[in-house]
């Protein structure tokens, strides 16, 4: 099948691939130390206008420090941070065209919703008579017009989140920072709110930088994700790239579920064959990497790419094993298949039919396989 013509597709938003695009934010060799502890380690990063940029990582990885440096609450120990080409190192938080939505929302408990949103505007150079109109606009944006007179403790968690968002957007910042914005909401509300956030980001055209430890949230909302660990950027890419083509075991493991198998790669034609255990067939893997003969490497396979069969299929990368665990999630089931040598392969099947009898059951002998293109080859 021929590829569709590129002109038939809408122009994709990807300023990071355009060498002429000027970044809105630019970290240049930024290091931040707290005493002996290095929170951010010589970091280079460009964030572009209108991006929805996610900083993802485990707690203590430096993502919050990075955000607080953008807000102005922390100063870089070394290096510079540029906002539209200007070094903002010496600019205090109250003078930056950057606003932040706090994890705790930090709504002023003694002020009404209306006054919370007007708080920043009253401190800006906006003429007094224009403030009410702007507040009304913001209330409409987050659909909180009815609650303008309430105090923060009189509204629900989801409503507080909206007010916090409206307050941080009221001054029309060039950059909006969101610190775990949905962390306090329950799962269902969180999912709804993710789409609202995206909508609001598109409507206002503001650049968003979101800090989160929830990989699903980052995948849903972000145009690009930066995976961080120990103050370093491990990988910065769009959600599909970071999921389907992670560059390290750390990233593959951090985003989504994965089975990682260690072995030694040898090139056979345009494919690598990874021998990994005695008595098991080598795993065949297509990869753009160039590996030396017999180089030690990892094969990472996402469970949804693994097919599970009752009979041996005529295919590549076929392994036999026994089901030791089943996780039933409703829409899909995860099977843990243990091979003869003890290795567990995770396989996921969509439950497309409403049959209460499962296709496979515990202790059943099954075959698993995946195609050559589905496995990810990673250097050690």
């Amino acid at each position, binding site marked *: 099948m021929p590829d569709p013509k590129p002109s038939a597709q809408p122009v994709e938003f990807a300023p990071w691939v355009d060498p002429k695009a000027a970044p809105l934010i630019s970290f240049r060799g930024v290091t931040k130390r707290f005493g002996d502890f290095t929170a951010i380690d010589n970091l280079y990063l460009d964030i572009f206008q209108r991006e929805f940029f996610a900083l993802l990582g485990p707690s203590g990885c430096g993502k919050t420090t990075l955000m607080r440096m953008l*807000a*102005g*609450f922390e100063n870089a120990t070394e290096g510079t941070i540029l906002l539209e080409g200007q070094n903002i190192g010496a600019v*205090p*938080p*109250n003078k930056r065209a*950057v*606003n*932040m939505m*706090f*994890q*705790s929302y*930090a709504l*002023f*408990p*003694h002020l009404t919703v209306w006054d919370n949103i007007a*708080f*920043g505007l009253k*401190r*800006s150079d906006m003429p007094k008579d224009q403030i009410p109109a702007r507040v009304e606009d913001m209330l409409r944006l987050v659909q909180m017009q009815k609650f303008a007179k309430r105090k923060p*403790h009189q509204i629900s968690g989801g409503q507080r989140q909206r007010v916090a968002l409206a*307050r*941080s957007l009221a*001054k029309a910042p060039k950059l909006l920072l969101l610190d775990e914005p949905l962390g306090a909401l329950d799962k269902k509300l969180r999912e709804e709110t993710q789409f609202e956030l995206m909508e609001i980001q598109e409507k206002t055209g503001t650049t968003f930088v979101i800090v989160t430890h929830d990989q699903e949230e980052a995948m849903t909302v972000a145009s690009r994700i930066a995976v961080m660990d120990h103050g370093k950027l491990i990988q910065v890419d769009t959600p599909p790239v970071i999921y389907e083509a992670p560059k390290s075991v750390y990233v593959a493991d951090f985003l989504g579920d994965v089975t990682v198998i260690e072995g030694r790669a040898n090139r056979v034609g345009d494919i690598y064959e990874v021998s990994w255990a005695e008595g098991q067939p080598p795993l065949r893997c297509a990869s753009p990497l160039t590996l030396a003969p017999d180089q030690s490497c990892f094969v990472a396979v996402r469970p949804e790419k693994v097919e599970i069969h009752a009979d041996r299929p005529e295919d590549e990368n076929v392994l036999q094993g026994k089901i030791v665990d089943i996780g039933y999630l409703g829409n899909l089931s995860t099977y843990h298949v243990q091979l003869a040598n003890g290795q567990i392969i995770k396989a996921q099947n969509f439950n497309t039919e409403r049959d209460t009898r499962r296709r496979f059951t515990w202790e059943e002998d099954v075959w698993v396989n995946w195609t050559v293109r589905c496995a990810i080859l990673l250097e050690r």
Partner: protein
Amino acid sequence: MRRLLLIAIPYAWLVALFLVPFLIVVKISLSDVQLSIPPYTPTLEFSAGWTGIRDFFSQLDFENFVFLTEDSLYWKAYLSSLQIALVSTALTLMVGYPIALAMANAEQAWRPTLMMLVILPFWTSFLIRVYAWMGILSTEGFLNQFLLWTGVISEPLTILNTRVAVYIGIVYTYLPFMILPIYATLEKLDVSLLEAAEDLGCTRRQAFWLVTAPLSKPGVIAGCFLVFIPAIGEFVIPSLLGGSQTLMIGKVLWEEFFSNRDWPVASAVAVVLLLILVIPIILFQRNEQRQREAEQ
């Protein structure tokens, strides 16, 4: 039934230790002075039966309260007590708030030590501490000697036996009652609120007045009442530090009881003082309740 019993205990306590003594004081305030033991009349004679009780009530009157309004000494004493209590409450707030703020902003490890330092003076006798102030403030006291030595003044200042000494004494004595409730509200204050204020364009100073100050209001109100209510009836500090010119109702009360031995008038003074204090006490309770509701 069990609930009723539980509630009955604090009520019994209040009735026995507050209401009954208060009613006795009210009764004395309605009696007449007499040279006897006890120094007032009438006393309740149960042996005379029903007529005795009727007799007893017919002899009670409001004479003493009328007397309070006739002699200017009393309302002057009330007014000056109110004034001294108000001024010293304001001064205590001005001294106490910065201390509470500094404590709340101190590093976590230091806070228990600072708290200890605030409470520590309570470990010595209140009277000894007030006497110590006499030693500091008198004309030959440490303060004057120090100021003369540094050359700030050439003549010793007269501080003892003036109102200034009373203010110093009250501020010193009641400072912990101001600091602790303010510290409690400031310590609970979420730091991210101040960061949010700064993020939205406030300077540090503006953030203090727009966020910290209004949010610490319950603590300020509680602290002010905890100082104001006892300060208004204060007796020891004005009599030891204030000299003879300082007129306070606590002192008048003392003199009526022990110098004049006019228990009925003294009781009337006490009842009026209590009525004056009931208003701020009710306001205080209301403030506490509102704070509890806001926290829920």
